[in-house]
């Protein structure tokens, strides 16, 4: 599993968990709120119903009070309008807006709401029932009516009726808690007239059953409709809409996380690939160093520090390797190349000559009577002699020449693009320089053998052997001389 996938999963899993827990909590919250809301609505509907009943009960109490007074009954019997008016006028309230006393044959003896208007017949309410509650069209208005027959000395003398006209204000008062509307509808009347009822904010609808007398107006409906308040509507909207953003976030966030991580981690991946290539030896340390440099230019990214650290490491490693290489190819005493290096030089020159048809020459230099120097002056002086001879050779060779300690007191010079004559001249020049001044108070001479690469040579042994042979000749011919290997010399 890649780093990206791991990081993305690490980021998404808690989010996923939080999403589901959040969604469950929201769901539970809404269900609890809804249950509480509907319970509250049921309670409020009962309150509205009780308000209606309270009004009806007040009418009942007043009617019964009237009917229980002998003075009132006598006034009905005598058609004492003045007395009746005074009494039933007091029954009027902001809701009970009309009161009537009728004679036995339906003549209005008094109206509580209109002192001088009486003497007419009242036909819209049935008078034959002992007690009556219903809704009737009285004087052009649908009204709650409660009435009772009146008996004076066991004689039916009339009736009393109290009326609550059904008005918009009355319905508003019944449902005055603000979040409900009580509507009334009959064949002729509908309250309220506004069409607020038709919308999707309706929470619940109740029908009020008022047990009206059968003689009441027909097809009457009291609908109590509860509407969602603005807060509830907002809550419902949130309930419906909250999942979409969450889902959207759930879908988008992984992509965003992936993108951010992808672009952020890309340099790390490249660096890892680079290190992988290095470990598989596909690139060198130098190439690794060069590639690492590129990461140093990344602004505001940790990779810059990593690459710089790597660069430092590579630089230190290279330094160590250089030192190792230098140590591995350098003669520790004389500071010129050692035999290992010279063999490599020879191998390379052989290959180059074979490939490019070029030439080179080899000079082998041997310090004369070096053993006696050591024996005479000690190894310390012997070593110093070796060092100074090497320095002189080093100081006088050409840029294209290679010098190394070939063994004991023997040095080798490999001269690129040099024939044996030119090499001879160089060798002789060396001989003269070394002989020209004392080294550690000792006259040091050297013998040199020169050989040129031959096209038949397939390895460096052959050319070195010939130079060595020429040195042997120089040694045998009195030392302090230079000899070129030629076939006639052998």
């Amino acid at each position: 599993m890649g780093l990206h996938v791991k990081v993305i999963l690490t980021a998404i899993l808690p989010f996923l968990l939080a999403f589901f827990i959040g969604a469950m909590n929201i769901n539970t919250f809404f269900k609890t709120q809804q249950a509480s809301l509907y319970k509250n609505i049921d309670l409020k509907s009962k309150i509205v119903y009780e308000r209606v009943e309270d009004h009806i009960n007040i009418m009942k109490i007043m009617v019964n009070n009237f009917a229980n007074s002998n003075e009132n009954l006598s006034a009905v019997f005598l058609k004492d309008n003045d007395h009746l008016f005074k009494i039933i006028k007091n029954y009027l309230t902001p809701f009970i807006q009309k009161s009537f006393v009728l004679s036995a044959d339906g003549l209005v003896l008094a109206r509580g709401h209109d002192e001088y208007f009486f003497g007419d017949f009242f036909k819209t309410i049935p008078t034959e029932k002992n007690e009556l509650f219903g809704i009737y069209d009285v004087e052009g208005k649908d009204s709650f009516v409660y009435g009772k027959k009146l008996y004076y000395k066991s004689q039916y003398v009339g009736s009393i009726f109290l009326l609550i006209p059904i008005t918009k204000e009355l319905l508003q008062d019944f449902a005055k808690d603000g979040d409900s509307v009580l509507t009334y509808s009959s064949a002729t009347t509908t309250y309220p007239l506004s069409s607020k009822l038709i919308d999707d904010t309706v929470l619940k609808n109740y029908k009020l059953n008022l047990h009206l007398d059968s003689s009441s107006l027909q097809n009457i409906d009291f609908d109590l409709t509860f509407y969602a308040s603005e807060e509830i509507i907002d809550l419902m909207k949130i309930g419906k809409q909250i999942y979409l953003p969450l889902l959207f976030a759930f879908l988008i966030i992984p992509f965003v996380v992936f993108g951010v991580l992808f672009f952020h981690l890309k340099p790390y991946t490249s660096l890892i690939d680079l290190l992988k290539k290095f470990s598989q030896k596909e690139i060198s340390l130098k190439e690794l160093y060069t590639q690492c440099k590129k990461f140093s230019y990344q602004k505001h990214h940790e990779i810059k520090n990593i690459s710089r650290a790597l660069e430092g490491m590579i630089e230190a490693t290279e330094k160590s390797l250089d030192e190792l290489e230098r140590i591995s190819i350098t003669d520790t005493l004389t500071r010129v190349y050692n035999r290992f290096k010279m063999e490599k030089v020879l191998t390379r020159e052989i290959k180059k000559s074979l490939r490019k048809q070029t030439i080179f020459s080899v000079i082998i230099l041997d310090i004369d009577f070096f053993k006696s120097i050591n024996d005479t002056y000690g190894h310390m002086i012997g070593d110093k002699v070796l060092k100074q001879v090497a320095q002189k050779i080093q100081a006088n060779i050409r840029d294209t020449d290679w010098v190394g300690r070939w063994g004991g007191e023997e040095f080798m010079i490999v001269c690129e693009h040099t024939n044996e004559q030119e090499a001879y001249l160089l060798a002789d020049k060396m001989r003269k320089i070394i002989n020209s001044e004392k080294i550690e108070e000792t006259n040091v001479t050297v013998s040199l053998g020169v050989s040129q690469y031959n096209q038949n040579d397939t390895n460096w042994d052959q050319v070195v052997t010939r130079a060595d042979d020429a040195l042997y000749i120089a040694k045998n011919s009195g030392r302090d001389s230079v000899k070129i290997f030629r076939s006639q010399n052998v």
Partner: protein
Amino acid sequence: MFKKIAIFIFFSFEVFAKPLIFGLNPYLPSNQIEKLHEKLRLHLETKLQTPVILTTSKNYKEQIELLETGKIDIAAMSPNLYYEARQMKKPFIYLATVTKNDNYKNPKPGYKGVIFTLKGSGIKTFEDLKGKRFGFTDRASTSGYVCPRNAMLKHGIDPDKDLGYSFLLKKHSKILSALLQNSIDAGATYDRVLQEAILIYGDVFHLLYETPLLPYEAYVVSNKMDKQLLEKIREALLNFEDSDAIGEAPARFEVIEESLYDQLCI
């Protein structure tokens, strides 16, 4: 207001003086009645050096009971009520009879009861009252009940049987309002109500009947009253003179033959 006046008056005179309670006849709304009698009340207070409190009874007949029980000291009884009291031999003593002015401040020795209707009602004779809605005032009212019933009987109409419906409206002013509202077809009241109605509404009324001149209210006291006080009250009444009085306000008092109250509506 009533209480304030009473308290004021009470403390204006002797702290412990017993106020005289003056019971008025409720032929008009109580506030109107009491306002009309305010001058007289002040006159009595001055003359008697005693606080005088006005009160209007609930109905005509209540005055008899109130006077009998001592709840009022003086009663202004409607002629018929005084007649009934006399018939019942109630222990009352007659002091004087009030007289009033007409609307032009001319003395008016008595008043007349009337039965009237609206022109166009179709009622032109007593016969036409049959089956109609009729408005009386109080059952003890002379002009609003007793006289019109007598008149009907004289003209062959039994008010209890022949009238369609008869209402008791108590106040004379209400007879006019109910008639104009078409709540009754005809009604009984006294002449001044009709005269004032004609002034306001014009010649829209039809006078069906009027009584002979009737004496105004009789001012009576209980026979338990101290004789000295009784005489002082009578003297105070007879000394009362309000020449500016118009309408129902008392203008002056006179002593008439009590027997005149026995011949009402004849």
